[in-house]
């Protein structure tokens, strides 16, 4: 029986590092793989109070805090974990919120194994990152408790009468809106879709990030007095220039994300049954096609699915296909599992759910029948060669190794590029060779008063990096308005 959380008792408070290292890592309670193959509910169920306390007790409270250096927004990790060990979740959330506004989300989707948990002393001592303190799970635990009690909106200073526009309601936009609003400025978020949340709503599936969690954050913003205008496409419904020149917005934060799906450029890519992961996931998540009773938008009824790519997007698409009843789902990736950019946990879950990993393979062309529908994907085998610019070994095609994969659906998940629309409709904005908006170290673009952050700057990155950039830019916007007077 799990015991209720309690103040860290003197026996654990006085533990020596050796004793802490001896506490076994707490596994995450999860839905059974066979059951979850047929539902869209969250896979990871969250720690119990006792598990959280146990896991928190494993932390050595290192003076040099290597974990903090690994955190993109520098949360004071040992401080919040100590509060968890002491059963003081109010204090824990207060520590986290100093640096991160979306802990319930980041606790679920951050690649902790390459960030805070990579340099963790516990993992290093046990010679296994998988045995590092589960910082993300503890973060999630604390944030979920906070949400259950009702998130208190941060205090907002008296109205300044100044207006700031935020383009896009992904993590970058949400955080920028909150931080600018706190200073008393009026903030309007413009979102192209009919629902706010960006990738967290249209891309990342419910089984990994329940939409109610994102909604709770949006509700908090609304409670702070942030205005939200959905179905408003900046660049088309109104140009960025007009927002500033005619509508009285003194500064703009552009967090429009990287929504432009890349395709492979292989033969047969426009056949019926080939779709971008964005399209597939949007149909299922945003448009609710996983529930044909409540949704109008159809989704492919696939039997044999190939998903091309090795990132989170590929894992999400593959696991969605499993849940929609595909007989077999193949992730086709041209390197090996070690090079996959996806979170380790998602790869692990995909394995458990029966996704077949076809490593060191890559499509050469997609073939179709007379009706223009996919009947198969011809692939080539690869081997790893010399490291490329990204430092990962370059995949090298093995000549003559062609073989046919029998599939009726091909989902392309090889990455997304920054949304080009705002750039196309705002000549003043400068971009890099990948189409990302160029910004200075405060997040200001080449257009005065226009700031940007998140995937529109970085290309496909992470929620936490987007959030971090939103914060930096918000601070710069507040400063800019002050200086402008």
């Amino acid at each position: 029986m799990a015991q209720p959380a309690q103040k860290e008792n003197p026996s654990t408070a006085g533990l020596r590092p050796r004793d802490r290292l001896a506490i076994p890592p707490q596994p995450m309670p999860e839905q059974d793989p066979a059951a979850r193959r047929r539902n869209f509910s969250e896979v990871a169920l969250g720690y119990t109070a006792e598990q959280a306390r146990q896991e928190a007790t494993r932390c050595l409270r290192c003076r040099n805090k290597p974990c903090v250096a690994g955190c993109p927004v520098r949360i004071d990790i040992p401080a919040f974990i100590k509060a968890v060990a002491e059963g003081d979740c109010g204090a824990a959330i207060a520590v986290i919120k100093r640096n991160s506004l979306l802990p319930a989300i980041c606790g679920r989707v951050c690649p902790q194994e390459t960030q805070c948990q990579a340099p963790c002393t516990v993992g290093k001592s046990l010679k296994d990152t998988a045995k590092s303190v589960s910082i993300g799970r503890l973060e999630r635990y604390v944030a979920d408790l906070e949400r259950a009690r009702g998130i208190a909106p941060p205090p907002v200073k008296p109205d300044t009468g100044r207006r700031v526009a935020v383009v896009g309601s992904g993590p970058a936009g949400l955080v920028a809106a909150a931080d600018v609003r706190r200073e008393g400025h009026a903030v309007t978020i413009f979102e192209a879709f009919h629902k706010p949340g960006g990738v967290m709503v249209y891309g990342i599936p419910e089984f990994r990030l329940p939409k109610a969690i994102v909604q709770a954050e949006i509700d908090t913003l609304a409670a702070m007095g942030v205005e939200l205008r959905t179905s408003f496409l900046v660049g088309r419904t109104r140009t960025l220039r007009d927002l500033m020149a005619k509508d009285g917005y003194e500064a703009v934060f552009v967090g429009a994300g990287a929504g432009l799906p890349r395709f492979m450029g292989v033969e047969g890519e426009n056949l019926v049954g080939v779709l971008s992961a964005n399209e597939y996931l949007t149909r299922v998540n945003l448009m609710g096609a996983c529930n044909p009773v409540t949704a109008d938008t159809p989704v492919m009824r696939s039997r044999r699915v190939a998903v091309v790519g090795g990132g989170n997007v590929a894992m999400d698409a593959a696991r969605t296909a499993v849940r929609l009843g595909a007989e077999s789902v193949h992730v086709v990736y041209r390197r090996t599992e070690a090079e996959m950019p996806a979170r380790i946990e998602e790869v692990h879950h995909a394995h458990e759910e029966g996704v077949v990993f076809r490593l060191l393979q890559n499509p050469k062309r997609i073939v179709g029948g007379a009706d223009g529908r996919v009947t198969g994907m011809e692939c080539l085998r690869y081997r790893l060669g010399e490291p490329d610019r990204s430092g990962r070994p370059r995949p090298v095609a093995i000549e003559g190794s062609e073989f046919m994969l029998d599939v009726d659906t091909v989902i392309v998940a090889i990455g997304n590029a920054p949304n080009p629309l705002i750039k196309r409709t705002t000549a003043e904005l400068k971009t890099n060779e990948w189409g990302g908006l160029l910004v200075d170290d405060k997040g200001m673009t080449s257009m005065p008063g226009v700031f940007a952050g998140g995937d529109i700057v970085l290309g496909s990155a992470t929620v936490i990096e987007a959030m971090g950039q939103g914060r930096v830019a918000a601070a710069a916007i507040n400063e800019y308005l002050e200086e402008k007077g």
Partner: protein
Amino acid sequence: MHRIVRKEQLSAEVFRLTVEAPLIAGERRPGQFIILQLGTYAERIPLTIADADPAAGNITLVFQVVGRTTHLLAELKEGDAIPVVLGPLGTPTHVAKYGTVAGVGGGIGAAPLYPIAQAMKRAGNRLIVVLGARRRELLILEDEMRTLADEMIVCTDDGSYGRKALVTGPLKELCARTPPPDLVVAIGPPVMMKFCAETTRPFGVRTVVSLNTIMVDGTGMCGGCRVTVGGETKFVCVDGPEFDGHKVDFDNMMSRLRSYREREEESHHKCHLALGIKEEE
């Protein structure tokens, strides 16, 4: 929320709605479209902005009842609201003084053709309009087009009104004239646009078509609307909807339109039964 200020029935299957959308009315240019949605989990469908009145803050949408959403739309009354209207989307028509412009509208295609014809006329072009429909009752916007056109040709497949011909008949004659039209804009069902492009190709007459593919977001984020144009992949919602008809791979486009065929046929059939529309073919 976008209130419906006027609703008219133009033919058995075709309705015209005037809808409040002040921002879109102010920004839209010929050739652009909107995406609408009747509920949070309702399908998103693209419809061309057939006309706009920026002073009144209204846009006009013309649609044919072809599926579940258009059926529900046809059931809405004046005063009802459409929850989601996103736009204006797409790249506007390239309007210029070409000389003689021939607009060819097949069936519901007359609706998207109208604002383009209007703009071409305003730009100082001589305007010829060819309107076609399967039969008389399905012909729409004839009067509106007549007030614009310098020359007007009306035809029906069954000869119940105007000439008994497919639009490609008169189009071929126009191309054979000296001089031929400087530009043809053909909008209608995909097969019609395909054959219009085939008709003008031997004459070397530039032909613009406006594609109505399956769309989800309408903002360039999914690629569901993509088509092959001159061997390259293009997104209809941002790169289009207008393309060079001689370069569009219509066969690929038509098979892509049938991606969700089974599901759509189910709901299409049910809708027609409910609205009492006779199904043909």
